[in-house]
């Protein structure tokens, strides 16, 4: 298994999607797991390989597109800002694997921020929505 590395901010991170996680071209909050949203790196995976009967669609985001300095509208003005970050997590059976996780802005930890569990569910919902909106659904080229 390869060694984890820094993910370039422009690299596409593919998220395979169940049909029920889509509203047209928009990705719904179910596609976001606040413990860590599993994605596959474009450096090691062609997105077409992720399409299957159970996972009929694929969306992508990039490190540069991840939400930053988020202050949920439901949170007090002095509450911390939040951000999403990507972390390389190669696995034995999937060297392309990485995860997108939330943390308080300014932190450098690479684990999902445990403080999020203590936040009201409304805050968690806002974060999930904000992250889901950063995914762009991929479609096959018409001539392919």
């Amino acid at each position: 298994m390869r060694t984890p590395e820094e993910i370039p901010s422009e690299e596409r991170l593919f998220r395979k999607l169940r049909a029920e996680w889509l509203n047209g071209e928009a990705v719904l909050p179910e596609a976001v797991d606040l413990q860590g949203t599993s994605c596959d790196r474009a450096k090691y995976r062609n997105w077409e390989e992720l399409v299957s009967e159970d996972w009929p669609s694929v969306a992508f985001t990039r490190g540069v597109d991840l939400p930053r300095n988020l202050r949920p509208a439901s949170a007090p003005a002095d509450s911390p800002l939040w951000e999403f970050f990507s972390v390389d997590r190669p696995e034995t059976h999937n060297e392309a694997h990485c995860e997108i996780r939330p943390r308080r802005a300014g932190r450098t930890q690479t684990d999902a921020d445990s403080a999020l569990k203590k936040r009201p569910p409304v805050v968690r919902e806002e974060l999930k929505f904000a992250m889901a909106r950063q995914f762009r659904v991929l479609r096959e080229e018409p001539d392919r």
Partner: protein
Amino acid sequence: MTSLFSGADISGRDELFSRGSGTSLLDEIFDDLVESVGRARDQLVARVATSLTVAAVALTSTAELPHEAAAEIPDLTLTLRDESAQRIRAASSQSTQPNELARSNALEALNALRSYDLEPQRIVGDPDGGIALYVFGGKSLPNRGRSKFARVLATNEGDIVAMCSDDAAERPRIWADDGSKLGNTASRIQSFISG
């Protein structure tokens, strides 16, 4: 036997809400495969699905029937279908499965929505543990999208959170409901969807 959310438009694979009791033939097939096949989970799920093809011909076809027709199908068939769907989903999902609290609150939310003539078009499991009910409305968008959706999430922790999202708005409206104001929540959703 019918699904708890039998009125909703959900695929057979996602009917994770009905629970049968006892051990079915499909359970045994599944367990045998789990023991005998040492391979990555996705491959295992694919093999399970393939092995169930014969039984699934009858079972999955029932998932596409209207509720009224499905109600006529013998209980055993529906039980097998629901159990197999639940097993496969559990094996194929990396997510936390909805617990009884989430199911109970989701049912309360469903009833509240129905009292305002709102029928969820989609019911899905939430990756963080819970059940989300979706009502879509507004303008039609490409690829069967709609410009508005309302989502009521019942979490495994017992929280109920409602969200109304409009493509025209930058942020969705999100609020918590402790379960005592579900009528108000349903009313707000009705106003949002019909507005």
